[in-house]
Structure formats: structure tokens, C-alpha cells
């Protein structure tokens, strides 16, 4: 890893007005060769680690890494995440969890563009590495505000289904958990009757339920609901340990959605079928699992984006549902993290080195990771 990188730096075409040259040895401080999150510690703080391509495809093929960062990874020809304090904190806590005790809920919160989704991605990678069954919702806003298709629910009258999105999610779930789902022990505990002719038997493997949802898109939402319940039961029995990772959890409690009934009336999240499943899964009445959630301003409409604090975003209902939870703050870059980010950009040839660059950019972006990315794009 080190050899390859130094070759790139030394062999590259040197820009014209270079006065502060990044020495090869110095540039290695921002990278770590440790690509297993369970071995990351505070000594790796502010360092980038590379996610191997196959793991990346398994975990994030259908979402999980924000769109803008995705485009960056294509340009950089690698997927690297920065090891930062919030995700280290959560991983540290997860390592010391007693799985016989009720589920712990962690909530990542922070200003727009401070790195919550990527912190969650880091934790999900850790979950994969330690053999958790990952229940990952890449972005709740995708369902509530940009759903592809909505329809009245057949199996739950009064509710509204978002079947296409649910089916996509089932595919995502299947790819992410391919390694765990091969375990023959994971069987469903009750019958699911879809219609007069279709039925999923009790005792069937959980994969059958998932396949049914993917192939029969009409029942996809109910499949998702059933899946959540089954996973809960399985974890209680000790068949698997689960990690629930949801980005934009406050989307389940924000009163305005863009999901409508067939009469074009707005549907609150509580009436969307899939919501119930994920609310069940974030309760504390089961064990052998851990919940890592994110609350994001962007999941609500622009006029209601007044604060990034969890209680405001979750509302009374959401807060009572999650209480007691552990809030984890995701802040702007510290000086060390900022330097590390700039070094990474320089190494990836994204930004040409120039004297006084770091200082100017830290002022312009306010050390906000997203703003820095936007500004560096045009340089």
C-alpha cells in the first residue's frame, strides 16, 4: 500500500508553482493501512482507511454512501473513509456491549455536511466485519419524500405501501447480508398468507420471504414489515446478532411526507407500512442487537430545517420512542482532520498544492467537510 502510494506521488507530474512540496514520508500520516474497523483506535484518528472494492460492492451497492461522495470515490478510484471520533466512540461502545441486555440505541447528530452518513457507513462496515446481520436503511427521505410509487395497502387496509422502494431495499438487504443469510438456522416463526394461493410457511428460511418480496413487488412492503419482526424474534432467540443502521431516522416522525393516498391526500409516516417495521426494530424490548441511527435536518422540508438537534428533529413522539438513547455529536473537522483531508486530496490529485491553501480553505469552508468538498471541486 505504502509503496504504491509513494510511487504515485513521486512519479506524478509536478505542478508549476509548487513551493511547499508534500514529502512522501509526511503524506503517509493521513493514511492507515488498517482496513478492518475493529482494529481502529484513537491512534488512527483523522486517518483515511481504504474499503476493499468487494466489501464496498457488498455493503453499499444500493446506497449507504451519499451520492456526492460516491462521485468522489469514482474520481479517486478508491473508497476511503476517514476514521473520526464519533464512529470510534460507537464502535468502542459496541465492543463493550453485553448482548444479553436490552438493545442500545445510538443517535448521530450534527450540522449539515458534517459527516453523519459516512460515520454510519464506517459503523456498518464494522458490523459486517464482526458478523452482524445488518438492517441498513440508506436514507429514509428516499422513501418518505422521493418515493417512486405509492399504493393503498391490501394486507393492511388504511395503510399505504411504497412497493418499488421496498423491493429495492430487500435486494439491498440481501446483498449486504449474503454471508449471514447462508446460515440455515434463520427460519421464520409464523405463516405469512399473501393471498388465496400464495403463502410462506412457518419454518421456511428467511431468504424465501425476501425472495418473495423481490419477485412479487405487490407484497414487498408487507415483506419488509414481516422481515423486521422475524429478525427481532431471531435475535431474541440468539440465532443471529443484528445491527440496525438507519440514516435520517427523523424521517419516520416528520409529519409531512410526499406519500399520498390514491385520493392525493398526504399520508403521515405512521400510515406507511414499512415505518412500523423499523419503529419496532428500534425499540429496546429485544436483545442481541445494537441500533445506530442518524437524525438529519435534510430529511425534513426546508422551511422546518431550523435546528440540527435530535429532540427538535425527532419531535416528542420520536424522543419518547428512543429515550434513553446515547447521542453522539458529529462536529466539523478539527485542525488535524482538516489537514489530513487536504493531504488526501492532494495525494489523490484532486487539489493542486499551493502555499497558504489550507488556511484559506479552512476559512472559506468553516471546516465543514461537505463545504470543503464543494469548494475543492472547482479548484
Amino acid at each position, binding site marked *: 500500500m505504502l509503496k504504491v502510494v509513494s510511487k504515485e506521488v513521486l512519479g506524478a507530474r509536478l505542478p508549476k508553482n509548487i513551493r511547499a512540496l508534500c514529502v512522501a514520508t509526511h503524506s503517509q500520516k493521513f493514511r492507515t493501512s488498517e482496513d478492518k474497523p475493529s482494529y481502529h483506535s484513537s491512534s488512527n484518528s483523522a486517518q483515511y482507511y481504504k474499503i476493499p472494492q468487494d466489501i464496498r460492492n457488498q455493503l453499499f451497492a444500493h446506497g449507504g454512501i451519499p451520492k456526492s461522495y460516491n462521485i468522489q470515490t469514482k474520481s479517486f*478510484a478508491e473508497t476511503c473513509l476517514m476514521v473520526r471520533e464519533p464512529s470510534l466512540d460507537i464502535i468502542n461502545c459496541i465492543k463493550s456491549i453485553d448482548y444479553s441486555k436490552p438493545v442500545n440505541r445510538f443517535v448521530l447528530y450534527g450540522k449539515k455536511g458534517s459527516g453523519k452518513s459516512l460515520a454510519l457507513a464506517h459503523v456498518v462496515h464494522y458490523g459486517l466485519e464482526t458478523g452482524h446481520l445488518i438492517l441498513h436503511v440508506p436514507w429514509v427521505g428516499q422513501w418518505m419524500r422521493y418515493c417512486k410509487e405509492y399504493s393503498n395497502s391490501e394486507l393492511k387496509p388504511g395503510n399505504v405501501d411504497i412497493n418499488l422502494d421496498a423491493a429495492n431495499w430487500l435486494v439491498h438487504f440481501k446483498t449486504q447480508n449474503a454471508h449471514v443469510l447462508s446460515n440455515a438456522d434463520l427460519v421464520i416463526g409464523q405463516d405469512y398468507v399473501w393471498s388465496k394461493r400464495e403463502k410462506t410457511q412457518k419454518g421456511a428460511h428467511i431468504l424465501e420471504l425476501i425472495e418473495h418480496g423481490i419477485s412479487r413487488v405487490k407484497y414487498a412492503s408487507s415483506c419488509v414489515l414481516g422481515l423486521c419482526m422475524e429478525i427481532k424474534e431471531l435475535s431474541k432467540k440468539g440465532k443471529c446478532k443484528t445491527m440496525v443502521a438507519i440514516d435520517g431516522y427523523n424521517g419516520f416522525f416528520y409529519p409531512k411526507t410526499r406519500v399520498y393516498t390514491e385520493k392525493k391526500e398526504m399520508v403521515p409516516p405512521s400510515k406507511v407500512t414499512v415505518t412500523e417495521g423499523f419503529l419496532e426494530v428500534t425499540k429496546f424490548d429485544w436483545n442481541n442487537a445494537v441500533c445506530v441511527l442518524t437524525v438529519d435536518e435534510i430529511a425534513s422540508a426546508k422551511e422546518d430545517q431550523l435546528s440540527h438537534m435530535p429532540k427538535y428533529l425527532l419531535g416528542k413522539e420520536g424522543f419518547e420512542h428512543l429515550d434513553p438513547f446515547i447521542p453522539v455529536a458529529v462536529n466539523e473537522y478539527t485542525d488535524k482532520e482538516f489537514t489530513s483531508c487536504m493531504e488526501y486530496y492532494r495525494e489523490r490529485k*484532486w487539489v*493542486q498544492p499551493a502555499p497558504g491553501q489550507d488556511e484559506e480553505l479552512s476559512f472559506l469552508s468553516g471546516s465543514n467537510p461537505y463545504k470543503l468538498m464543494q469548494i475543492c471541486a472547482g479548484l
Partner: protein
Amino acid sequence: MALVKTLANLKSVQILTNKLAALSVVQQNGMSMYPPYYINPIFKKDAQVELFENGEAQKLAHIPTKAALIDQTCSIYYDDDIRLFRNYIMRSGRKSLARELLDKAFEKVKRSQLEKFHKAKTEEDKNKIVLDPREVFHMAVDNCKPVLFLTPIKRGGVKYQVPVPITEKKSQFLSMKWLIEAATDKERTVHFPEKLAYELIDASNNTGRVVKRKQDLHRQCEANRAYAHYRWS
């Protein structure tokens, strides 16, 4: 009385010397709100430091100076040519939009160059690819600058297209204008920054529509070289 006169003379002499000093730095602009003896502002940090070092600052401090424009920043990324290009892109005074478009174009240039860089196998190939979008931009503009251009000159009732040498400024202007024209000439689904990025990359490699246009102009000039003496008739 004599003292007053000499004092008055001294003052007028001072103003005169100031104006003369200003004239050496002045930029003529017929429509400017400023009187002609006003000098342009020096807003870059290193230029200012230089002035203080060689003592020019002392002289310039007493000459009336124009106010710096909002575009003229002391940022390390300030570039006069890029600023000029941005102004040419701007329409209806929407400078923020022009800035966004140019930023996106540079981003696109970077991304496509990086793609090529990562695809290139040998070190030689990698070295040939320019990754700095600003450098690509400068190369593109340089490559599209015409050396001569045709002016219509009327001789004996007929307008002849006469090849004539071009000033540096006009040449640069034509180059930038052609690049923008080429970028706006596109399908509706393609966005301006994307098209501009491709044009810039092509021009920096000495290929593409704009370079072709310059070469066409040069060919025309070559063809019309017989009329060259019409310049002086």
C-alpha cells in the same frame, strides 16, 4: 507674497508630478467614472508586500486609487484570465451563476482528466495528462489564440477581407469568446459546464472545434495574403 506664490507653485508642481506618475500606471477607459489620473488598485498580498519592500508604496499612497472590484480578491486562487473568462460567461449580470458554471466546468475537467490518469498504464502517459483544471484552461486559451485575423477594408468600392496582425488582448478575447460559443452550441440535454469542460480539454490537446476554427481563420488569412498590402493601400 513671494512665499505664497512659491508655495502655490510647489503644490501645483506636486499635483502635476502625481498625475505624471499616475499616467505611467494608468489604464485608459473612456467610459470610466474615474478621472484618468486614477490608478488601478493593487489587491494581491504579495504584490503589496513587494511594493513596500522596494519603496513604491510610499509614492503610490499619495495617488488617488480606484476602488477594487468585488471580484478582485486576495485569494491564492485569484487569476485575472479566469476572472475575465467568467465575466464573458456572465449574462444579465448573474455573476454567481457564471461562477457556479465555471466551477462545475473545472470540476468536470478534473474528473475526466483523473479518469484518464487512472486508466493510463505507463508513467509516461500519466505524466502527459494535465490534472490542474486552471492549467488546462490556460493551455486551451493559448492554443486557440489566432495570430492574424481578417478585417474588411474597402478599396475601390469593394470590401476585401485583409489579413491583419492582431493585438494580444484581442487575440485572447477571441479565443475566450470562441470557447464559450462552442460550449453554448450544444444539445438541450447537455449542460453548459459539461460541454465547456470537453471543449477546454480538447483545446488544451490542440484538437476540437475551437482550434479548428482558429486554424480555419489562419488558412483564410494565408489564402488572402495577396490583399495584405491593402492595409496601407
